[in-house]
């Protein structure tokens, strides 16, 4: 299958078809300066205004890519995120070589992003309520899932099960990590198995899909949420648009594989703007915790935690 081609080819080819996605690689951060150009509407917008909106364009609502730290800051209560399994790193089980050895490719990605891998997981509080939170970085080898990412998803699920608190995973991934070959494929099995245990034990899993989410990630744990949310306009699918175009030799319809497309076809529960994501998750956590009773809108909290804001 060729669903990896989009994410990985960006490093090498100049042929670009999806403006948002190419921008993700080129500028993960909005560059310094008072004004920036929106990737979507191409208008010049005031940087502070974009930052204040959580990196969303005030003119067209385009959601700029954000870093793991920014995502955590937006979702988790201040200083509540405590990372775990942060010290696991990839091996090179296939001694995979293309133009560069795999370990070198990993080291480069680590240097570029300051991360050890494409996923960080931790326990945090959201409006006072505990959750296990995992966030992907598309900037780290296209957010691809190898054994470490798979292991972290499994550990995040196992921690959620152990603590009986919800699991939230925010994905951004081109799919499987080719350099780990068959091991990367098997991560689809491991991660889905871990989510299966959450389902069986009624531990809620909220999957948040962001731009882009494809291949081995979308076709495994990411689509197995009890509730599946996505940011507006996120590209989500199995095969990348280029692979599909090459296969069927025709142009893809407008809006194809966008979050709104998936919503209308019944594969998402909701498309949520970034500014509303925290309160949406907070409300979900509350609803799912109190099965049978709904006290999410009451003033006081039975466990002395902070009430949910409106």
């Amino acid at each position: 299958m060729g669903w990896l081609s989009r994410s990985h080819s960006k490093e090498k080819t100049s042929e670009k078809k999806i403006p948002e996605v190419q921008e993700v690689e080129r500028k993960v951060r909005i560059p310094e300066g008072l004004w920036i150009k929106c990737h979507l509407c191409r208008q010049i917008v005031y940087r502070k205004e974009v930052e204040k909106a959580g990196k969303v364009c005030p003119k067209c609502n385009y959601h700029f890519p954000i870093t793991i730290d920014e995502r955590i800051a937006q979702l988790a209560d201040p200083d509540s995120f405590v990372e775990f399994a942060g010290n696991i790193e990839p091996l090179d089980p296939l001694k995979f070589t293309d133009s560069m050895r795999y370990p070198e490719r990993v080291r480069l990605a680590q240097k570029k992003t300051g991360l050890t891998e494409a996923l960080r997981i931790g326990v945090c509080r959201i409006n006072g309520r505990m959750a296990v939170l995992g966030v992907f970085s598309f900037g780290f080898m296209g957010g691809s899932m190898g054994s470490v990412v798979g292991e972290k998803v499994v550990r995040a699920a196992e921690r959620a099960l152990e603590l009986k608190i919800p699991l939230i995973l925010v994905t951004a991934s081109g799919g499987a990590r080719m350099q780990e070959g068959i091991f990367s494929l098997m991560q689809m099995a491991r991660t889905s198995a871990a989510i299966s245990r959450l389902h069986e034990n009624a531990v809620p899993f909220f999957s948040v899909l962001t731009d882009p989410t494809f291949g081995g990630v979308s076709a495994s744990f990411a689509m197995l949420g009890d509730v599946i949310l996505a940011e507006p306009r996120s590209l989500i699918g199995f095969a990348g648009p280029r692979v599909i175009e090459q296969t069927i030799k025709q142009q893809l319809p407008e809006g194809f594989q966008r979050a709104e497309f998936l919503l209308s076809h019944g594969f998402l529960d909701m498309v949520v703007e970034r500014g509303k994501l925290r309160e949406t998750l907070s409300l979900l956590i509350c609803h799912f915790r109190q099965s049978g009773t709904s006290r999410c809108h009451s003033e006081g909290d039975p466990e002395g935690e902070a009430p949910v804001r409106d």
Partner: protein
Amino acid sequence: METHSKTEKTGNPIWENVVIARAQDRPTALDYTQRLFTNFVELHGDRGFRDDPSIVSGIAGFEDRTVAVIGHQKGKSFKDRVSRNFGMPHPEGYRKALRIMRLAERFKMPIVTFIDTPGAFPGIEAEERGQIEAVARNIMEMFQIKVPIISFVIGEGGSGGALAIGVGDRVYMLENSIYSVISPEACAAILWEDAGRAPEAAQSLNITASDLLRLKIVDGMVEEPPGGVQKDFSVVVSRIKLILSRDFEILSRKSVEELLSERYEKFRKMGPYKEGTTKTT
């Protein structure tokens, strides 16, 4: 859909392996079903949208048991292959497979799956109907199915589309079959922008039966006669019969709890990493 150039002239033994795995005269899932089992009754449809001929399924006899059979079906003649979309299922194919697995579970029939696909189909309708959801759901629910599952990669094990019927308590590969996260052509196109370098990619990816046995991804390899299984199908069929006979016996003695926790642990272990060399955060 993929370039199959540079086939014979490479002299690369792994590529010859790929060519054999994809050969049109290689027996299909239905061929195995006919030879291994008795009284096969084919069952059709996902009960939601349509019957996907890229996946065949049904129930049949094996020794004193009734078993459920599910397999990708590439087809034989060109017309047949076209109608079966060259063994590349749409979501409803995977949903049919899951329906049969749940049926098998209800009636306590062990499940045998035959994997032989270039991959799940990359197309507009497949995406519209939720290829990602169908593949993900099959993989997850296979961890919950309370009857033994034995899988054979008989030709091409193409990525998530293969795994979606491949979460077995035992997984075997035919000697000349391949199993990969990405086709060598697509991999080469990404690495070198040249699908013609697929043989090199095939080498890097470690996709042969002996590779996967060494990497402990599969439980065993079924030997083929020189030149491939089609040279002497009977000998391969009898080898598979022995495996099924033995495994059904072993697996049927396990409690449901044992079966499911062993299935979980089997896949839980697949993914090497190092731990503790750098500090957290």
